[in-house]
């Protein structure tokens, strides 16, 4: 099973009921900002999801995409980020050492850090993993009064999304955002505008990001062995030649001695 959320931007009215529900579910408390730390998309350590209000009256919900091949999971060196079999990407605060490579790696810039804590943790949406395991919908989906959020199997939601596009071709951009980007995401968007601005690049490729690091990592054993063999070989050759040279010098010295 692969749990997913379909967000239909055209249905969102920006009431932020989902944000409120998310805050209550995760017990996040009021938002606090540091000086000079304006919230870019409103996400923060105390806000796992937000509604971006675009000037042209579009309300775009921002949250973790729960990528199928998550960059944060492959980045985390202690395995604190984990892709669960059910779909959500979750975070184990007991393993985290606070390197923040996940913040660096995320193509959507989602994970947030508790900068004002002396023992800070990474904070992000967990797709209400515990609720999903209980068979419930995520809190935000349940709270949405307009059915702009839909929870279900990723394949079913993709089908539904394409059905909506086919039914109202004029109403939507002919693309389900998240279907193929960076290997596919579990949070899908239907919209009447391009949502490329939500990521670090307008045009995310279909290639997942972990394989880019793996391209270099898979060479590690080869490089280690090769470098070891090369250095060992060079040392052996040079050392032997120097010994031979020393021996020859000894021999010639001896010959000279015997000549005398």
């Amino acid at each position, binding site marked *: 099973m692969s749990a997913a959320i379909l967000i239909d931007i055209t249905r969102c009215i920006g009431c932020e009921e989902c944000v409120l529900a998310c805050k209550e579910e995760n017990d996040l408390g009021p938002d606090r900002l540091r000086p000079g730390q304006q919230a870019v998309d409103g996400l923060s350590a105390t806000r796992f999801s937000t509604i971006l209000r675009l000037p042209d009256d579009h309300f775009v919900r921002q949250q973790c995409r729960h990528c199928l091949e998550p960059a944060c999971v492959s980045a985390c060196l202690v*395995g604190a980020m984990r892709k669960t079999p059910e779909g959500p990407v979750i975070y184990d605060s007991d393993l985290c050492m606070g*390197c923040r490579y996940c913040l660096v790696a995320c193509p959507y810039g989602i994970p947030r*850090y508790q900068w004002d804590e002396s023992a800070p943790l990474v904070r992000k949406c967990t797709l209400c993993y515990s609720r999903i395991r209980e068979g419930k919908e995520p809190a935000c989906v349940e709270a949405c009064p307009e059915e702009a959020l839909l929870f279900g199997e990723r394949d079913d939601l993709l089908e539904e999304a394409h059905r909506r596009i086919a039914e109202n071709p004029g109403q939507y951009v002919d693309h389900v955002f998240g279907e193929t980007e960076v290997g596919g995401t579990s949070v899908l968007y239907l919209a009447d505008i391009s949502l490329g601005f939500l990521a670090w690049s307008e045009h995310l490729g279909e290639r997942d990001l972990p394989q880019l690091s793996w391209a270099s990592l898979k060479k590690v054993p080869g490089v280690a062995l090769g470098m070891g063999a090369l250095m060992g070989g060079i*040392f052996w050759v040079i*050392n032997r030649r120097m010994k031979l040279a020393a021996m020859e010098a000894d021999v010639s010295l001896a010959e000279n001695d015997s000549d005398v």
Partner: protein
Amino acid sequence: MSRRLTILKSVLWTLVGVLAAVSVVRFLHGLGAVTHLSDAAPWGLWIGFDVMSGVALAAGGFVLAGIVYIFGLERYRPFVRAAILTALLGYVAVAVGLLYDLGLPWRIWHPVIHWQVHSVLFEVAACVILYLTVLTLEFLPVVLEHRLFSHRVFKTVLRALKRVSIFLIIAGIILSTLHQSSLGSLFLITPYRLHPLWYSPIIYVQFFVSAVALGLMTVVLESLFSNYFLGHTLHRRELSGLGLAASIVLWAYVALRFGDLVVRGVLPTALDGSWQSWLFIFELGVSAVIPATLMLIKPIRSQIAGVGTAAFLVVGGMVLHRLDVSIVAFARPEGIGYFPSWEEFAVSVGIVAGGILIFLFFVEHLNVFDDVKGHPAPEQPSYDPATLHPLLPKRFALPRMYSLGFLLGAAVALPFLPLGGVEHVPVPVQGPRSVQVIIQDRGENETRHFALATAPGETTRMLMIDGNRDGDLVLFDHDNHAERLNGDASCETCHHLTKPFDTNTSCSECHRDMYDERSVFDHDIHVMRLGEDGGCVECHSDGSTVKSYDTVTECSECHRAEIAGKAFIETPPERWGPAVGYMDAMHTLCVDCHLAEVLARPEQLPESLNRCTTCHDVDWREDVRRMAPKRERPQRVAGDTKSSGSRQ
């Protein structure tokens, strides 16, 4: 000891003092208190300089070890011990820098236990930990030569170490190759964030090749440093040789950078005149092209000044390259910058200062440079601080001076530190505004009702205030409040000087049920009505438990008529408490009716009448709970109860 060395040490101790002061706040109050790091710039100076550049600057250890022990170029042997010591201290500095940068530094050992082999950072961590061990073993013989370790156990260890030394050297080269390149691989996962002039699918090769050149050049700089401060012999011919080697490696690096740009087809980006293109040209020029050219010319590289300048350029330029990759050319949301705080600089500089002090300690007590005979006779400084305090023996003079420097640094830093931790931005308060309103008097209960004046009529001026500091302005009848609160004597109820940061009382401090879901219950009234002190047990009937909301008698026990009959407000059962709050009440009053009206007259009323945004102006705000009704709605009469009154 030479005078310049004394001055250097005093300065270094002062910097370490500043570091100590910053450390206290860093570890007490967290990263936010002392850094300018943010969610938009999660990695800053401590990663870019201390880790990325620190590891690269320590490359001299494996490069020189390879040159001397593998390639047998014996004439470079005088540099090798110092290079390995620099590398060791460099990696210790990296580890210390990481302790500052990690959010949870006490878990720095986690990668040893929790392996995640798909992470580049794991590979870096593993290699750095192993290499730190290898470097310690490589340097240990130098320590064991000291007369303190003359016991035969140490001699046995020393012999064993020397026997395995070639394996240590090769292991060191393998590990260095892996993690010097992997520091570049860290950014393979950020193709959309790192600028194309720096992002490259072969960034790890570029990192490795540049580290080799940088390693050669740090050895040169270190040699000049030792000559200047410690009076060690300069090996001119060897320095020139290192320069030539670095030049060749640097040309390879330039070819890799340019070749990569050409193959990826982004070469035009390097010349498009953006600040990134200028930075790229500047960085590549300073770090590689200019010094590599300089060192190709024999008369220049044979001179100490020539090779020194080139070394300085390479070291500065390569540090810039690491900073570019990890900070400058790394995308952040528009309008959000990152420039390190002074505390970040203080920590980076302080760690380097501490490293140099340890380096000097080793140099003074161990045979780090193979040419001990080069030591000049110690000369007395012209100003001797010991003379000021004849009570203490003279040999305490220098330690006293250094500790003075340390304390001075710490003392100067302390007043500038945010000792209270992170200060949060106060919610901006809108200033009070005077507006024209229509007065609508109602006779019955002597309350007056107002509306913003949009049509001619009997008007007066009234205040609009941001009474709860939540960004929402409401009409505020100041006269009425003063009158009800006992006239002229009432000013202090709201305006007071006893709360330093609070110039007047929030509306919600008196109108307590504004946001509170259960605030219809007024404890004071109940106490009064139930007969002051004796009344407690009426509700808090169980004397054995703590008096709290959880143990109190249900309201419905007394208020049977109102609550048991559910009065006029239906609320969802799970939210059922002692009484419903203001927001639940309002929502039920409006939304149900709106929905019913829409369903009853779908043609005449807009479909969206029952939606949240009909009444609410949802905007960026500190707390979504404070979802106040829309502002500036001229037609609506504030406090008009006609519409909801029909329901009662």
